[in-house]
């Protein structure tokens, strides 16, 4: 016998959202693996130069960075618009590079010390004088593996 349900209201069935967290987590893991944490807050601004013969820096823990560029707007009043060097979170003089490299290297594991790479992240407009100074300092500190940070050039 067929029943006729008159009294029951026709409600929209609730949408099952139990898989939504999983989807979002997947997105989260994707971004975590693809991106890298910012190493420092930049006090200098720079635009990477372009090149084609690039190699990826393999182990992050073995890489130290030297930033070269003009101070960002908030520091311009204090430091002027001259090209400056940034080590870790602070402006530095080129004479401090050697000490910084040696300190960083001695903090590494002994078997890794020879594999340390220094990545020079400099603005493409930088004059070579300052880069050459940095290179001399790195030579003196025996940090001979360097990498000029650059982005892939798509066309000439």
């Amino acid at each position, binding site marked *: 016998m067929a029943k006729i349900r008159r009294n029951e209201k026709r409600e929209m069935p609730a949408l099952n959202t139990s898989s939504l967290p999983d989807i979002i987590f997947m997105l989260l893991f994707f971004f975590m693996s693809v991106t890298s944490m910012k190493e420092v807050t930049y006090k200098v601004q720079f635009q990477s130069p372009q090149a084609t*013969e690039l190699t990826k820096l393999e182990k992050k823990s073995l890489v130290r960075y030297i930033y070269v560029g003009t101070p960002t707007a908030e520091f311009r009043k204090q430091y002027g618009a001259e090209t400056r060097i940034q080590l870790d979170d602070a402006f530095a003089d080129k004479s401090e590079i050697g000490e910084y490299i040696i300190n960083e290297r001695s903090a590494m594991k002994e078997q890794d010390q020879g594999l340390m790479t220094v990545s020079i992240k400099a603005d493409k407009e930088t004059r070579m004088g300052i880069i050459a100074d940095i290179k001399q300092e790195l030579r003196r500190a025996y940090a001979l593996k360097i990498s000029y940070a650059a982005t892939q050039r798509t066309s000439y």
Partner: protein
Amino acid sequence: MAKKIPQINASSMADISFLLLIFFLVTTSMDVNQGLARRLPAPIPPDQKVEDTDINKRNLLVVKINSANQLMVQGMEMDVKQLRAKAKEFILNVNDDPSLPKLFEEDFGAPIGVLKYTKEHVISVQNDVDTQYQAYLNVQNELVAAYNELRDECARKYFHKGYNELDEDQQKQIQKIYPQKISEAEPKNYGN
């Protein structure tokens, strides 16, 4: 009838993971760390006298970049786009040209055999204090590209594979034929 277990309300889970996602989006940067890998020469000990390394003129390719980012190769002005071909010609010296580096014959082992190569060639890059970083990097890039192309050609000829697909020993074999010899002098002022 079994007792029904009340379902845990998981609707806020999505919000929590969204928060996490946004946090990571904000704190991370997308750019991959890549760059032009180079090796600096070891420092000269202060007590050691700087000796003039005697390099035969034919073994030397001088690339100068001035403060206006103009290029001069072997005393002639040149565009950076032509540098790669010039460098390759210099490194190879196919026709045993007396003005290009001297050829040496050496046995490189299994699939390669005896080959003539320019053992003593040196490419010297000299830049001005005021040279732009991008111009300097362009030159370095072209020179590295010249070596990479030569190595790749060699790998394809003898191993029928690209240079990057070879194993370490094979790569070393090829590196012996085309050793990267890019020397950088201390920067000087070349006027203007």
